[in-house]
């Protein structure tokens, strides 16, 4: 097993799903549930003659941060691009339900329990969305995870962590948006339709997926931070993501409503204002929106060290 202290200094971007899960919680507290030794592989992939993985590409388990039980879900991008199928989706849903059930139990046993002793769910996304091999089962898995978020709302905070190689795209982009709070690194990417798919559908003139700078300033953590799509922008280290989750662990579940992007009439209004702004502006580049948000030198801001970016960046308000 990976050395916990060494994991802390490791790049989040380059870490495997399991290392991210272990490093996110306190040293030695992570217990994997439905792990590789349980051999819960996808039956659909077997039928198709496609390679399978013992954990179906999702690491699930529970650990602690301080007194708080933290239920962790961590997706592995190297296995079929982190695409979510039936088994992996069921593991996600079950983990969230375990957290909800545990929260209920703890509250019933001690109505005066401190907020930082109640469970929290952290999901490290690295996925292109639905595993197409599993079609409807994969789609259903997405819906079930969103449904679990609804059950968790007001009971157990759900935190999204995005800073891995594949990013978070497709249906899982929707799922991430439905969490309570999103933490990204500048290397994290979040969106619905991935760059390659946009290029394939709309042509290279619309979006050049081979232009890394364009891809990152459109889908990357810095842009999402300015747009308000992510709440916190952290350094690319496991310790930095862990540090932000540790801060969030101090908050009672009610405080997480302030971070949400969807889920109330007021937030829908806000989203509609953003859509109206896009229609009015017709931006040709993400930097147009950065400028509109009050950043006079978007290119300079985009190239600045992430620490300076955090200090200087003006975030869009609609």
């Amino acid at each position, binding site marked *: 097993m990976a050395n916990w202290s060494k994991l802390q200094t490791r790049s989040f971007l380059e870490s495997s799903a399991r290392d991210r899960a272990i490093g996110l919680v306190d040293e030695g507290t992570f217990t994997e549930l439905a792990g590789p*030794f349980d051999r819960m592989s996808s039956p659909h992939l077997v039928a198709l003659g496609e*390679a399978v993985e013992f954990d179906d590409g999702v690491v699930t388990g529970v650990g602690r941060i301080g007194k708080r039980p933290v239920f962790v879900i961590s997706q592995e991008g190297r296995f079929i691009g982190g695409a979510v199928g039936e088994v992996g989706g069921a593991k996600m849903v079950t983990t969230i339900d375990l957290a909800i059930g545990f929260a209920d139990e703890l509250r019933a046993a001690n109505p005066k329990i401190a907020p930082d002793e109640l469970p929290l769910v952290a999901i490290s996304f690295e996925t292109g969305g639905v595993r197409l091999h599993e079609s409807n089962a994969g789609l259903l898995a997405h819906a079930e995870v969103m449904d679990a978020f609804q059950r968790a709302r007001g009971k157990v905070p759900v935190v999204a962590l995005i800073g891995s190689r594949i990013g978070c795209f497709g249906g899982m982009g929707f799922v991430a948006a439905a969490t309570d709070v999103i933490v990204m690194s500048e290397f994290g990417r979040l969106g619905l339709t991935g760059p390659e798919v946009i290029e394939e559908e709309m042509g290279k003139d619309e979006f050049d997926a081979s232009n890394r700078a364009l891809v990152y300033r459109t889908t990357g953590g810095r842009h999402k931070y300015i747009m308000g799509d992510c709440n916190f922008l952290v350094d690319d280290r496991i310790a930095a993501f862990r540090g932000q989750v540790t801060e969030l662990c101090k908050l009672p579940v009610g405080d997480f409503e302030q971070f949400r992007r969807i889920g109330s009439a007021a937030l829908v209004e806000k989203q509609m204002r953003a859509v109206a702004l896009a229609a009015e502006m017709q931006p040709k580049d993400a930097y147009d929106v950065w400028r509109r948000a009050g950043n006079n030198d978007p290119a300079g801001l985009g190239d600045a060290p992430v620490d300076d970016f955090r200090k200087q960046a003006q975030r869009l308000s609609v």
Partner: protein
Amino acid sequence: MALNTLEFECKAEAASVRLAAPVHYGVVGSGDLEVILEPRDLEGAVTVKITTPVAGFDAVWRKVLETFVNRAKLADVAIDINDNNASPAVVSMRLQQAFAETAA
């Protein structure tokens, strides 16, 4: 085009190394594999189960696994592999890495 399962047993010439605990290593990325090594009472033998989309390389698999088991002097271990088109060199390396994890 089904997923192929290859199962066989081998015995190291100087079988003497037993595992204290099971270990899992690797990710089934493209051209990569994962391996589980588990201690099991097999009267000194080593069982191997490989699940792979690749067909027609049974002899190569056997050779690579036998070489590993002999070098590591493994006894009473069940090896379980999920493969996704890994080359023999990668298979060899991952097996050694998994084995190194058991000592860590």
